[in-house]
């Protein structure tokens, strides 16, 4: 039997993300089924990480290999610039609720509540620099993917808004607002796969 070819880097990463996604979803499912003393917020977070991991795995599996699409220097810089705000964002998501309970000062509460969003600004900066320094075709792929993702997500939220107005669904405004940006990132991943594959 001929030796099988090694998986490309992006597909190996996809397997890691997929494994992480399945593990966190199983963990959340087990905690729910066994009635473990875990808050709904943590369960939701675990499920969110799980779904995010599976989504990232699907995107990485179908995207053209990143080493073919982006110079190594640019992808290294992107990862480096993304690491700090992304880590800060994850820590802030975990910390902002407990921190809110520790203060009654309105300006401090506003600052603490906005902490995750401030880290997202750092993520956006890294992404903008990445897109601007990509070559013209890659920039076109990124911008088309972003535009289509924006259209799809806003149309989805518009449709949900009409369903909510008709009392057919009941999504709390807090949840709806928190999910706009993650949904945009998620949808962008999938629109990028479709658009990038047109140029293969």
């Amino acid at each position, binding site marked *: 039997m001929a030796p099988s070819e090694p998986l490309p880097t992006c597909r190996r990463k996809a397997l890691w993300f997929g494994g992480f996604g399945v593990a966190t979803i199983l963990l959340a499912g087990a905690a729910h089924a066994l009635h473990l003393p875990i808050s709904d917020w943590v369960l939701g977070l675990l499920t969110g990480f799980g779904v995010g991991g599976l989504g990232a795995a699907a995107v990485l599996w179908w995207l053209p290999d990143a080493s073919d699409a982006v110079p190594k220097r640019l992808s290294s810089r992107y990862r480096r610039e993304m690491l700090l705000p992304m880590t800060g964002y994850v820590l802030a998501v975990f910390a902002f609720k407990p921190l809110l309970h520790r203060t009654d000062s309105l300006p401090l509460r506003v600052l603490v509540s906005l902490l995750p969003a401030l880290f997202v600004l750092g993520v956006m900066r890294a992404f903008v620099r990445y897109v601007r320094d990509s070559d013209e*075709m890659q920039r076109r792929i990124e911008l088309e993917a972003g535009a289509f993702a924006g259209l799809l997500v806003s149309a989805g939220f518009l449709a949900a808004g009409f369903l909510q107005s008709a009392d057919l669904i009941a999504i709390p405004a807090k949840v709806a607002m928190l999910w706009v940006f993650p949904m945009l990132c998620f949808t962008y991943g999938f629109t990028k796969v479709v658009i990038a594959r047109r140029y293969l």
Partner: protein
Amino acid sequence: MNNRLRELREARGWSQGALAEQLAVSRQTVNALETGKYDPSLPLAFRIARMFGEPIEGIFFDDTLHPT
């Protein structure tokens, strides 16, 4: 738009990766240019033309005028 990019690159014995590096674009972009799936901007077309020492119209053709 059709082009002679692959022919010119192969005549020089360059890989897609080597050409991509010289043009400061990705290998995927060179592949898309060669297969006609992506038409370059004017500045990139000029860079390609300069690299191969040919006029732009000697490399890129309007396929509605010169169907293959």
